[in-house]
């Protein structure tokens, strides 16, 4: 399990090195979570390719997926360096089993109809832009650089989600009905994005992450504004889906990574 990091005992009487190592381990877990979010959502969006409503939308979704995979590469590569195992981004993406993935459940939800994909994109992109902007102001220089770069791309993904939310919300009776149903289906999984645990507490204290409660407040205002423009209301779910951050995934997750990892399993070590 990458969670525990190296089991070798650290050299004695080197407090500063211990602290660095602990900070590295925390950053390794954070980049693993964020990298898995991007990787799994990118893989999900790829499933729209050749199935989107128009060829323009096909390209729009695959462009977003490509950006997300780019984010995943940067984050997972860093995670592999920091956790001391020296695993590459490919090792992490294609060499782990389902329980070792740390993505939030939201990102693995099946695409559903187009409205479900739009609702999932709406929730995720608003969260991701706010988080990446906060990372850009954070204390870890590499994550700050990543956040500044990624926030620009994610802002365009958010624009795409906003446009479709409005269009479906204000479109026909059928599109409004589907968009409402999609929001109800997706919203229970949004809480996990802002869950606090020991890891996030340490990272917030270190100034790497923003306080998650404040992030959530900003996110709520941000999505509420779009839903309001779209004539929709923010759902108030009676339950919350969580577990992805601990490696406990939904039923739909196994087939997703089985497909993603199939080539690597058939041709281990293959290059082309």
């Amino acid at each position: 399990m990458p969670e525990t990091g190296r089991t070798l005992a650290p050299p004695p009487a080197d407090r500063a090195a211990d602290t660095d190592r602990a900070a590295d381990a925390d950053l390794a877990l954070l980049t693993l979570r964020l990298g898995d979010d991007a990787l799994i959502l990118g893989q999900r969006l790829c499933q729209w390719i050749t199935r989107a409503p128009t060829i323009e939308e096909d390209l729009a979704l695959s462009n977003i997926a490509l950006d997300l995979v780019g984010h995943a590469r940067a984050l997972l590569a860093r995670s592999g360096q920091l956790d001391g195992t020296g695993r590459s981004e490919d090792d992490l993406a294609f060499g782990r089993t389902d329980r070792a993935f740390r993505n939030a459940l939201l990102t693995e939800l099946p695409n559903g109809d187009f409205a479900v994909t739009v609702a999932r994109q709406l929730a995720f992109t608003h969260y991701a832009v706010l988080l990446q902007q906060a990372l850009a102001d954070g204390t870890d220089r590499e994550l700050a650089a990543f956040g500044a770069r990624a926030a620009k791309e994610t802002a365009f993904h958010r624009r795409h989600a906003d446009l479709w939310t409005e269009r479906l919300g204000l479109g026909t009776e059928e599109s409004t009905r589907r968009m409402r149903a999609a929001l109800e289906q997706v919203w229970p999984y949004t809480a996990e994005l802002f869950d606090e645990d020991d890891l996030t507490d340490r990272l917030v204290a270190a100034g790497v992450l923003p306080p998650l409660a404040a992030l959530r407040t900003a996110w709520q205002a941000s999505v509420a504004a779009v839903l309001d423009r779209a004539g929709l209301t923010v759902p108030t779910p009676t339950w919350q889906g969580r577990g992805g951050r601990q490696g406990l995934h939904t039923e739909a997750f196994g087939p997703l990574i089985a497909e993603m990892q199939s080539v690597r399993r058939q041709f281990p070590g293959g290059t082309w």
Partner: protein
Amino acid sequence: MSRTTSRTTEGAPASWEVFLRPRRGLAHQHVGSVRAGDPDTALSYARDLYTRRGEPLSLWVVRSDAVHAASPDEHDPFFAHARHKPYRYPEQFAPLTGDSDAEGSDDDA
């Protein structure tokens, strides 16, 4: 209020012509077209389709039905005259300071 404006955009998506200004010193160039229900979406699609490489300065979309074009049937009246009017080309003009040694200076009025 935005409800009514958006409702008018439902239905078959329109065609939009895409114009891209690749860099400073160049004018916008027509690069292709996209289909979309409204201008914002057309702009998004145009960005995805035509600007993935490079970092252009500006992007326009214009509804295709807003373009008024010369008809191919009228090609000759519109375009054919230039070829047979050599005096329209600069090499036909005599230098102002020169004398009778310049060629083609005879029939320029």
